[in-house]
């Protein structure tokens, strides 16, 4: 058995082992990798950055712990940017296990706001984030399509109270806030097909500015909506999150993982090339031996 036949019969667990070694070694050594920011990510950052203080940004958290790796960094970067700029954030959760994700993100980001930080050369003083004033978390309701449509009429229809049981009318931030007309934009961070609903039933029906942050698996399928202008920005997977962190000058878990991504991808490409060489060479040999 020569090297090419061995390649074709290689136990896939060797691939897993090599990949684990590459990931662990590159993660163990901290070194920076350049991050190229794409226009579709910059569009979201610029939009949020241009909003005057007091505006409301709606951030639906539509992902489960399974998508946390890619989408949590997006949420952290965007929400922290909003709160540093004194914008208000309206959270919803239209995925079953998303309330836990939203709750965790709110607590963590609130804590990070308690210390003074400098982003892109601007120093932001510490501040206390207050529920009902700086943010409102509407909570979870099933059937995202119906919920998105009814929020277009009035947030109080599907959510008479917030996630913590407080009536919306008694929250200062919700005074005079009826529906999507009163929010600057919607940035849907989603690991489910709720993005489709936000595009069709939300933006398509009510015409508000919509941007999305999605998992790597579903990024490619949403680019047509960016091309057609139905969404004004798109963040794809951990790469999109790292680009946003880079723009916000707020390095987090996504940027921390990009060096691993780089070398893991290089190793996978090498394996693909090797596998193809093995396939074509052994195929040619089989042909030649067949002729003999």
């Amino acid at each position, binding site marked *: 058995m020569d090297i090419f036949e061995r390649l074709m019969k290689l136990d896939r667990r060797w691939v897993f082992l090599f990949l684990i070694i590459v*990931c662990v070694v590159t993660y163990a050594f901290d070194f920076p990798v350049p991050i190229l920011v794409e226009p579709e990510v910059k569009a979201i950052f610029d939009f949020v950055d241009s909003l005057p203080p007091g505006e409301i940004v709606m951030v639906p958290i539509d992902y489960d712990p399974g998508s946390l790796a890619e989408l949590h960094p997006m949420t952290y970067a965007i929400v922290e940017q909003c709160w540093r700029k004194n914008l208000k954030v309206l959270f919803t959760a239209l995925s079953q296990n998303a309330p836990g994700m939203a709750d965790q993100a709110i607590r963590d980001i609130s804590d990070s706001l308690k210390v003074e930080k400098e982003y892109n050369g601007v120093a932001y003083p510490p501040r206390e984030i207050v529920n009902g004033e700086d943010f409102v978390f509407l909570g979870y309701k099933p059937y995202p399509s119906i919920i998105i449509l009814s929020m277009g009429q009035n947030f109080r229809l599907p959510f008479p109270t917030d996630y913590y049981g407080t009536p919306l009318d008694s929250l200062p931030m919700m005074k005079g806030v009826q529906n999507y007309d009163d929010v600057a934009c919607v940035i849907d961070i989603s690991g489910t097909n709720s993005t489709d609903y936000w595009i069709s039933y939300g933006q398509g029906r009510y015409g508000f500015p919509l941007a999305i942050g999605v998992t790597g698996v579903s990024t490619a399928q949403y680019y047509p909506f960016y091309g*057609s202008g139905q969404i004004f920005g798109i963040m794809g997977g*951990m790469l999109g999150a790292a680009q946003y962190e880079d723009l916000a000058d707020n390095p987090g878990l996504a940027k921390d993982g990009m060096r691993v991504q780089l070398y893991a991808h290089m190793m996978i490409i090498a394996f693909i090339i090797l596998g193809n060489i093995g396939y074509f060479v052994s195929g040619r040999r089989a042909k030649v031996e067949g002729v003999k």
Partner: protein
Amino acid sequence: MDFTTFLWTTFAAFLTLATFSFLYKDNPFYKIAEHIVTGVAAGYFAILLWHNGLIPKLVFDRLEDGNWYVLWLDSSKPWYLIPAFLGLLMWTRFSMKWQWVSRWPMAMYIGISAGIAVPLEMSNRVNKQLYDTMATIDWANFLGQGSFNLFDVQSGLSQLIVFAGVIAGLVYFFFSKEHKGIFGGVATFGIWILMIGFGASFGFTVMARISLFINRMQFLKVWGLEAFNAAETPNPGHSAFYQIFFWLLVLLVAGYATLEIVRYAKSSVSQTRK
């Protein structure tokens, strides 16, 4: 991190390693992790649905006296009875004799969903995409904003590629004419365009999978630091417990690995004898 939190985090670390053990082969640790995740997710969702869906819509807690009241008997919302009744009809699925009744709420739900979905989906996922495909080629911005940029999706070149790709892709799926000559060439271009699309999706999928592994490494790193830098935690007195739990975990995994190696060695010896 207090001791209770650390206990749960340690359990999460164990579940992480147990899940990854499947990469070697299916084993009891993986089975335990799989069943726990499925059970916890189902339980969590059931409770969430109960408290976020059913209770606020059908029942409410009158805080003044702490008693529970059925909404439609106590308030001005008697029409809530209709969805409640339809919801109850769903339970007839469990009776062979009466299960046909459950088709009524299903029909109602599917009818409403279709009525909402068809015009909006048609408008936003078909018509708007068609308009974009048929957009006038932007010759003034043919190569991208400022300088040549192949990845500018709004450049004239991108619009031209999208237009040609859509036509060629549709030609590939036209099977009423043999793929020969110019028609065959266009179909071949179509399959190349499709392959580029699938390749982009696959590349993103690989990135997503690596991302999941990176996140688990980040989690294990934090957990490891917590275990070994116990003196820096708010409860340095628990340092010994942290160490014990960590080494118990290592012992458990090492024990299983040893068992596997012994089993493998035994099977190799028996195969050699044959």
